[in-house]
């Protein structure tokens, strides 16, 4: 991945709320942590994160977030790439998310029906958007959970081997530069 692109991309996505550790993680590249044992998340939390991530980037004609190991990426980031307060923020958000699933749907999020899962994510996305637009969130308030995990899922997925080479196009050594090549939507893909 082009570092400049990645920085720009993360900056664009996160706006002023860019968390330095995500930026530096993307810059430093993201190890394929597939199969690695979880270090910060419990196995239940890991399953919850994998379920949410797969809803954000599902398997289609290419692997989804779960197969790309996004939950392990998030665990690695929480373990070695986050400051304690950032880790705390994520963990608090994750716990509140699970509480809400239980309260609204009567069971753990991973046991909710797909319709319930999608509905809850949509609600959270709308709430986060409203918070952002109304400017209600003060500096001392945590970031809403949905944009946080969406950003992590996207960063983890498109820098994974599956995300970069199967979903997008990855060319390590292009060998030439062409400043105008045709782009055919539906056939071609963005470069990772």
């Amino acid at each position, binding site marked *: 991945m082009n570092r400049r692109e990645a920085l720009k991309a993360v900056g664009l996505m996160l706006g002023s709320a860019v968390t330095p550790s995500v930026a530096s993680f993307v810059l430093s590249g*993201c190890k394929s942590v597939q199969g690695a044992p979880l270090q910060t998340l419990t196995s239940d939390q890991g399953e919850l994160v994998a379920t949410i991530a797969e809803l954000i980037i599902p398997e289609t004609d290419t692997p989804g977030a779960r197969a790309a190991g996004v939950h392990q990426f998030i665990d690695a980031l929480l373990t*070695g*790439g986050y400051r304690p307060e950032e880790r705390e923020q994520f963990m608090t958000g994750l716990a509140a998310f699970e509480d809400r699933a239980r309260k609204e749907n009567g069971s753990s999020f991973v046991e909710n029906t797909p319709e319930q899962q999608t509905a809850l994510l949509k609600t959270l996305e709308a709430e986060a958007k409203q918070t952002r637009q109304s400017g209600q969130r003060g500096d001392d308030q945590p970031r809403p959970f949905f944009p946080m995990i969406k950003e992590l899922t996207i960063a983890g997925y498109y820098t994974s081997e599956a995300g970069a080479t199967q979903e997008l196009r990855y060319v390590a050594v292009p*060998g030439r530069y062409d400043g105008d090549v045709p782009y055919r939507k539906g056939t071609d893909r963005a470069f990772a």
Partner: protein
Amino acid sequence: NVAQSPEVYDAIVVGSGVSGGWAAKELTEKGLKTLVLERGLPAEHRTSYITEHKPPWEFGLRGNMNPEYVDKHYAIQKRTGFISEEVAHFFFKDDQSPYIEEKPFTWVRGDRVGGKSIMWGRYTFRYSDLDFEANDREGVGVDWPIRYADIAPWYSYVEKFAGVCGEKLGLPHLPDGEFQKPMELNIVEKEFRKQVRANYPERWVTIARAAHITEPLGDRLPCHYCGPCWRGCSTGSYFSSLSSTLPAAAKTGNLTIRPDSVVASIIYDENTDRAVGVRVVDRQTKEEIEFRSKLIFLCGSTLGSTHILMNTKTSRYPDGLGNSSGALGHYLMDHHFKVGARGEWPGFEDHYYFGNRPVGFYVPRYRNISAQTKMDFMRGYGIEGEASRAGWGRNVDGFGADLKAALRDPGPWHIGMTGFGETLPRYENHVRLHPDKVDEYGMPLLIFNADWGPNELAMRKDMADSMAEMLERCGATNVRSYDRYKEGEIGAEMGLGIHETGTARMGKDPKTSVLNGWNQMHEVPNVFVTDGAAFPSSACQNPSITFMALTARAADYAVNELKKRNI
């Protein structure tokens, strides 16, 4: 208890970056037994590029680059945004040799043989007489003791060896050089160029001139467009000391490189009024060692070289070697940047690019270059920019298969520009030695006190406004300008441009300058300073090619003087 190296060298070069590498090459090729002292760790072409071509998913996170580790070791360097596992190993660990910021100053340092030439920006623009004459014309600082005609052949000389690609434009204020074929603007940048030419007769958009090769040069191969040059390049497709000058110097058999060598001061002989060598602290053992030579080239980076001169106090020079003028440490400059504009470029959705071009476009200075372009501030700025399509990190609402499908395609075209502005030399912008705090090598800590002045701030306003206006008039939409500078804060502070110059300026008069027109100390004639410290003004062009040309020119002069027994 100081050890003394038994060997007497013809020349000692302090530093192995852009300037030191050139000094080493020129002096060894002219037959001088040369010792290069580098405070950084060892590094070699190819084998030291440990992250080259590594795909993102193969990088580990755990351990190295955790935020607390970065805070501890790279508290200053991280302000650049460059500190990552890709490249952190080439940067200086700030906690080794801290410094004091009375006002914010980001001092970016390399920590390897090769210095910052390993991860430099590689943009390469000649200075012109508009720059060399500016101080004299406007009564600012001191006059450059040289003119374009003095340095032009040396620009050609270093460009041919370094390998520079670029487009000739025939502009008097941005002279053409010895160029390999230029890299290519992409289709939106070409469109932007067309619009700029149509709207502004005095403005140009060109692909950046850069020390990249697009044609074979010696055993170096043309760029293969992988993208992250800062990781190092095994094919030697960009100029660095490791790929270019140091191998040439080694080939002569006259080169000795000693890494881990912190040069603390110069040894000065009162009787002969000459330097006779340098004092080194070995970085690993902390042992003090003296090395002797007939000639000394200080190429330790602008502030590294000045630091050594300031720390050389003798009864004749109580305020630093060769500093009767009092100019040493003063007139610190950089290029002020982190100011510009960006916007979207509508259309062209069925156009894309292939390959990771290592440079963007450049807009040569267009302010104060003629009577018609006169502004209410002095000097001017050049603009670096790029057009590209947004990637997977762009903001797309929603989630699920729709989001994934949307991110499969590249996003809209964007165009962004950042200015690099000339900084006036001002006496109050200075570094000085702390009276008693020292680092672990016994060097007194540097205190920085420098900031942008009224001329720079007036220029910044024009930079933001002018770039936004240019983008809008030429067809960009949703244009926004920005300026990251806030007085007293980190954001666009001095030093961040990594184009720091001044503090041991050249000049015609020994009463007001440290060096003469050959980068030679007025007062200690066998000491030359050929890095950015020598600059009496900053111009707005990226300075490294001028370091190279001045160094090669000074080496030629010094060897002739040595032969004539004048030094």
